[in-house]
């Protein structure tokens, strides 16, 4: 019997595969090995050179080239991918649950007539069945889903698998092809990719981060967190809702579309712990979470937690740290 094919769709920036690409390769490879399937790492690029000698966790690497695949243009990817996936006779297509992956899901589902399971935090195969675990409702629920049919598409959450396992010792065979379809007249033109403009604080460099979640309730209350951060020699970062309210600049946002941080201490205050936030901070050295909701998913990733009102706790904590420093 010909082994089933798992196609992992890579993402890259500046000639480097992204972390989530290595993570989903790791997950796909482990799953494929458990049932004797094969993994193809599919890279869409303008130039194949940066990808020619990578020891990826895959049975082969296919690079599809076209001048218009130099940037992550969802319309270009959406036009090329269905043709290539059909050519490769895939049983499963694995994408990151990322800005680009989410854009492609609807079009791939339609063009390939295949169901999509998004938000996956688990992936396994049993016989010919694919069983995905999808995280939803702010991380409070886990759904087990078996995509029906002969081809499934899954979007895997960043941080689900270990990126180190996305690389192996050997370089898999490489297959370079030009795009099977012309990419003229695309309805979407990629103009440019802008790097973030760093503001006064670079949260990726701070060793202590005080994270403001929705529980801070108002911009005025951030003063309390700033005072605590100052006492600990750290900086204040935030979740998306806080940034969306305009209480802190976008450069302070931690999570999927914001910054990924690994401070020594991450003190999460009023942070619910939605997956799109935790994927940007869960590698922190010490995570302490304070939330009024004892069921908040942040307690799943924190080392220590307390069910308390942050607005009451923070002034007391700041004072106690000040006292403690005075007695040193």
């Amino acid at each position: 019997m010909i082994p089933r094919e798992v196609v992992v769709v890579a993402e890259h920036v500046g000639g480097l595969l992204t972390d989530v690409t290595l993570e989903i390769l790791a997950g796909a490879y482990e799953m494929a090995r458990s049932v004797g399937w094969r993994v193809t790492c599919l890279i869409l690029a303008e130039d194949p050179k940066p990808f020619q000698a990578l020891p990826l966790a895959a049975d082969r690497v296919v690079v599809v080239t076209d001048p218009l695949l130099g940037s992550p243009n969802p319309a270009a990817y959406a036009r090329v991918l269905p043709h290539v996936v059909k050519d490769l006779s895939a049983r499963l297509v694995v994408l990151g649950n990322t800005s680009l992956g989410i854009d492609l899901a609807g079009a791939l589902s339609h063009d390939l007539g295949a169901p999509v399971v998004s938000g996956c935090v688990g992936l396994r195969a049993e016989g010919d069945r694919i069983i995905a675990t999808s995280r939803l409702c702010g991380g409070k629920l886990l759904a087990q889903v078996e995509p029906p049919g002969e081809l499934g598409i899954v979007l895997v959450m960043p941080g689900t698998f270990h990126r180190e396992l996305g690389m192996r010792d050997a370089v898999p065979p490489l297959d370079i092809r030009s795009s099977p379809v012309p990419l003229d007249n695309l309805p979407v033109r990629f103009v440019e990719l802008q790097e973030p403009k760093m503001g006064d604080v670079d949260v990726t460099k701070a060793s202590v981060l005080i994270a403001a979640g929705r529980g801070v309730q108002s911009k005025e209350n951030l003063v309390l967190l700033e005072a605590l951060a100052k006492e600990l020699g750290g900086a204040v970062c935030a979740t998306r809702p806080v940034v969306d309210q305009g209480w802190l600049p976008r450069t302070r946002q931690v999570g999927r579309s914001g910054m990924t941080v690994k401070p020594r201490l991450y003190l999460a205050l009023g942070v619910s712990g939605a997956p799109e936030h935790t994927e940007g901070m869960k590698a922190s050295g010490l995570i302490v979470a304070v939330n009024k909701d004892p069921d908040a998913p942040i307690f799943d990733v924190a080392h220590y937690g307390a069910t308390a009102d942050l607005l009451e706790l923070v002034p007391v904590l700041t004072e106690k740290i000040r006292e403690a420093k005075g007695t040193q």
Partner: protein
Amino acid sequence: MKIAVVLRQVPDVVEELVISDDGRSLSEDDVMYLTNEADDHALEEALVLKARAGAQVTAVSAGGDEAKEALATAVAKGADEAIHVAVPFEHRGDNARLASVLGPMMKSAGYDLILTGVWAADQMDAGLAGGLATQLSLPYVGGLVSMSLDPNGAHAVVRKEFPGGRLGVLEVSLPAVFGIQSAEQPPRYVPVSKVLAAKKALRVREQGEPPAVAAGVRASKLVKSGSEAKAEMLPGAVPQVAEAIVRILRERGIA
């Protein structure tokens, strides 16, 4: 310029979520709904565009009776037209089905822009916006944080979030479907009195029953996460918790 905004009702995750006896869905009696946060941002973005260049904004709200409340709020905020699409409880969160319901209606209405949230809280499928775009054979880009339209309405220049704080700038031919991540400004607040007034005067158009379509993906099992909670919980009232945190930080040389 005609803009449609799709608002979905999703479970409020601040409330207790109860799994029903079938072990694969939420208990209908216990779910509290609220408008999907990203959809709320999509409405705000539509209203921003309307204020900037003039537009007719149609709010399309999918769900049960609570979805009609969302329409009153949308009209109070500045939407010009309200359409309700009834979605039976068992089909909540099925974006493939919702796209197939909305597609034909939207095709005939001839919107220049269709906005909705890039993500819904109860989503486990391919999502609504991308599915709608394929139904309508329109271009789709999601994860947007701002957009500007050229004066003759032929193109939009959109800003799309990428990981690491990067922003992609893309030019998209209109009409198009966009998945909004967050609006250029926080969703506006509207006083309850205005919502009540809008509710009284509200003229809601009902969208008829959808054609039968294959359902999207379905959960074979639904469980609450967190049972494997890892955090060691610090007991006591505020002073005890503060002391415990200070002790932990001092042990690690952080404070």
